[in-house]
């Protein structure tokens, strides 16, 4: 009995050691980024792997340099606006489409849903050119609308919400139907509130993908005043390509909003991954 307890304890300690090592490995790039941001250029290109901490003081001015060179307030604003509108649009359209596919009967439902699935199966790059042409012809280049455009509807979100609606018991809707509730009323007041967890998952996925989207902002927003953090960072790579501390300071500032969002919505992030089975 005692040996079984000792074995369980040993396993627990071993598991924790492995987890600590894994967590350490995950955190090393972030620590490296922040420490490099505080070094001089000479220190940052030192090849000695044990040269981790700045030897000549902490150079906080790297943050000031990059903050002055690029208008981070504008970059934050553009990125947050893009994330906000993409999340709102994705949740709105996906929940309505998901309800229609999951609960309603209408002609062509299977064909239409097959089209949604096909959209999920092909690489996103295929849609870039037609989407770019649409945005360009509408005169929406260098606007927040242009940034939001590809995220207005989401095939993944539709599928996720359809699964969510299908998982709800039929009795609820039938009871509302007997009480004389219309289809929009049933959707709005009965069914939609019950898919809150799926909506939160979708919101989190949409926010993360919007935040790290590089290619689309690079194509549609070429002006410094309309671009996002990811594309702005890519531009900085040109300007500060050989100045690693400045680049790392910019990268640290760029990840800041997502870290704050994660800290606030940590529980929802974990639940979202658990609910949808997806990965960020």
């Amino acid at each position, binding site marked *: 009995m005692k040996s079984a307890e000792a074995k369980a304890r040993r396993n627990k300690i071993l598991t924790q050691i492995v987890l600590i090592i894994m967590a350490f490995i995950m955190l090393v790039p972030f620590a490296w980024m922040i420490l490099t941001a505080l070094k001089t250029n000479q220190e940052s290109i030192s090849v000695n792997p044990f040269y981790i901490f700045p030897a000549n003081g902490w150079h906080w001015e790297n943050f000031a340099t990059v903050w002055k060179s690029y208008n981070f307030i504008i970059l934050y604003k553009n990125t947050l606006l893009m994330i906000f509108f993409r999340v709102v649009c994705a949740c709105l359209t996906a929940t309505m489409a998901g309800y229609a596919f999951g609960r309603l009967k209408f002609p062509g439902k299977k064909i239409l849903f097959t089209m949604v699935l096909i959209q999920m199966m092909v690489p996103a790059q295929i849609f870039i050119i037609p989407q*770019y042409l649409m945005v360009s*012809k509408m005169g*929406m*280049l260098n606007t927040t609308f242009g940034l939001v455009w590809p995220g207005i509807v989401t095939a993944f979100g539709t599928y996720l919400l359809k699964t969510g609606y299908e998982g709800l018991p039929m009795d609820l809707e039938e009871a509302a139907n007997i009480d004389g509730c219309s289809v929009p009323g049933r959707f709005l007041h009965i069914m939609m509130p019950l898919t809150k967890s799926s909506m939160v998952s979708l919101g989190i996925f949409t926010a993360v993908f919007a935040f790290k989207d590089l*290619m689309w902002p*690079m194509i549609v927003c070429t002006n410094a005043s309309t671009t996002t953090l990811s594309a702005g960072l890519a531009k900085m790579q040109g300007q500060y390509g050989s100045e690693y501390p400045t680049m790392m300071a910019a990268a640290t500032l760029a990840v800041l909003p997502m870290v704050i969002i994660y800290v606030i919505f940590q529980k929802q992030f974990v639940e979202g991954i658990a609910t949808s089975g997806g990965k960020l």
Partner: protein
Amino acid sequence: MKGLRERLGPWLETETEKMRGMTARQRFSYILTYYWLWILGIISVVSISGYMIYRAAFAVKDYWFYGMYVNTMENGGNGSPLWRDFVMYAGYDTSVKKVEMNASAWFDPSVRGGTNNSYYQAFVALVESGDLDVVVMGREGLQGIGSSGRLLDLKDPKCAAIAEKYADRIVTCIPYDTEYSEDPVPVGIDISDSLLVTKYHLYEDDCVLGISAYTQRPESAEVFLDFLFSEPQEAK
């Protein structure tokens, strides 16, 4: 339409009946309580549609010129000295059409995996959409793009004037598509001694200009080339 009218009529009558005995404040409160989502939806649709119509009607959509400078660490984008001088030289009115310069692209088609990034995908999207006019990069990289068929064959009648004017600077490549040609095809103009190197320092030495395969404005590429080989302060 008839069905909608049949449904809306009784609904309107019922709602009017309900609000008959109410004060204006109560009516407002009633409408806001029961129809806030509809009102929000209508406002959103109207404002988004209005904005889209406004942009489609009044935004500057077409380009005078769209150029991309690949693998440069200098600022050659919109508003840069290069951009300003070129607009002045060409005499383009940017309130009518745009002059776009993009110096935020890093890829190298001459090395294995050198195009495996978002910058290259963005470049391909701009080429295929027909918006991009010229691309400038190192000789080997440009030959790599040329081999993939994304650069205009300078034997094309569209750019006969350029090919003739810069015949001594032609850079060739062998296409991957052997059905198109097994012989070297002219795809670039060597601009290593142009203002791009001597004045704006976008490249240290080796750089070649290629014209996008689907460009709608080969004449703007010619204007740009003329600018690159003009005296710095010379006006057209």
